């Protein structure tokens, strides 16, 4: 079963730059895919189109049965409830504690208090931060903040987790911790993970599917791929 179908997608920005040319791929449910490529290769654009921050100029993107390109601004929340998103800069709310940050994702969709509590504690346990519930983001290390962001992304039990350079701000050791967490989520929850990165070591060590973009063109999509010279 394919969770994501991308059919002949072009993306041209209003300033005239074309970021993606005729991209045509399907991503299976439960898979772990690295999207790699140099700067300006279109990795971020692809991720943004998947959570509909950007709309494709041409073609169709289907995520879990939703036609993303056709989704109206008002209905975007329907897609966002099915996916979790993790960014390089964590995007936590500084005035909220770890617990509140994660609970926030459930509060705004109207979950019950008891439900919020169980789910938040479970998610924080999965990322290994159950002992820092009442800390504020600025009291945590970068790696820990990113783990809070991951907990927030998975707390609603999404089918798909999109990560845009989640290790971009972290040193190799912390990066591997994050990767361990993501791998666990992929295995235990069966969550499909798509992660844009340019970190060679991570890609080569984990041996997952690799989708290589080069100047907006798909240059390679293989299982158990590596980051080779072609990818730059």
């Amino acid at each position: 079963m394919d969770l994501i179908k991308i059919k002949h997608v072009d993306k041209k920005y209003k300033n005239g730059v074309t970021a993606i040319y005729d991209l045509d791929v399907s991503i299976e449910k439960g898979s772990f895919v690295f999207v790699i490529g140099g700067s300006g290769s279109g990795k971020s654009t692809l991720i943004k189109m998947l959570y509909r921050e950007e709309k494709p100029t041409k073609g169709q993107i289907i995520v879990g049965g939703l036609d993303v390109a056709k989704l109206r601004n008002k209905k975007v929340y329907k897609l966002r409830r099915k996916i979790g998103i993790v960014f390089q800069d964590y995007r936590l709310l500084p005035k909220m504690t770890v617990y509140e940050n994660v609970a926030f994702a459930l509060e705004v969709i109207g979950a019950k208090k008891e439900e919020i509590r169980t789910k938040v504690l479970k998610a924080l346990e999965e990322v290994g931060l159950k002992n820092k519930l009442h800390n504020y983001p600025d009291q945590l290390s970068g790696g820990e903040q990113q783990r809070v962001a991951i907990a927030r992304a998975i707390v609603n039990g999404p089918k798909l987790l999109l990560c845009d350079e989640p290790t971009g701000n972290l040193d190799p050791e912390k990066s591997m911790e994050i990767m361990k967490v993501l791998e666990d989520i992929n295995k235990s929850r069966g969550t499909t993970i798509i992660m844009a990165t340019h970190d060679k070591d991570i890609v080569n060590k984990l041996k997952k599917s690799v989708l290589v973009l080069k100047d907006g063109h798909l240059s390679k999509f293989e299982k158990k791929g590596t980051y080779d010279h072609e990818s730059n």
Partner: protein
Amino acid sequence: MKAIRMLGRSIRDAFKSVIRNFSLSLASISCITITLIIVAIAIMASFNVNNFTEEIEKDLTIVAFIDNDAKEEDIENIKQDLENIENVDKIKMISKQELKEQMKKESEVFNKVLDGWEDNESPLKDTFQIKVKEVEKIGNTADKIKKIDKISVVRYGEGMVEKLISAFASIKNVTYGVVVALVIVTIFLIINTIKLTISARKREISIMRLVGASNFTIKTPFIIEGMILGLLGSIIPIIFSTYGYLMFYRHFDGYIMTQLIQLIKPEPFMYTTALIVVVIGMIVGMVGSASAVRRYLKI
């Protein structure tokens, strides 16, 4: 259940935000306060002017004097003719004797003078008092009445009253214009002040969008916040306008210059005004914040 829960959270967040961004809230509130004071004054002025016009219109009558040689049947004919004129609403016949009694009651001088006259040498005449349906056409109607047989003189305010009424009408229009303009200006001011509070929460809104909050959920706390600001902003204007009007009314003893221009009684008028002021304040706050938040919902 879920809707109530979400509403509860929205209200909580709205109050939090008002308190957390207190200086900005205060800016919005004082902005609303000043406008609402002027709006309240304008509302009370226009209502009163409206009232003056209505009262004067109610009092305005055409008096038609009947020739002294008119007989019973002539009077009956005149009455018929009057009834046939389109703009005529009510007709009342007042005889010399009745008129005399009325005038005697009005002043002591008249009382003495009139007492000396017998009915047949009285300078007074039998009259018809005529009320019209539309005051604007009163001149026209008076002309028609003049043409009726056995009617000698026709009098009505003769210009003065019409001028007064048209002056009131323009005052009323000006005050309405002022109210509308002020409300629009305040909405813009509020949009801008609330935009500041919202831009401080841009990050929060974008995260809400990312984790799947619907636009409605995101907007509600801000709209409630706008309502709260409007509500707080209308407190001073309400106190000002109710006490102000009460004092104004007492100072002038209920009328301006002449008994003709009566002020509206403070009760329940000042409560109605207060209600209008609160409602305007809340709507202005809501509209302002709703449109301020809108542009952050496109991410």
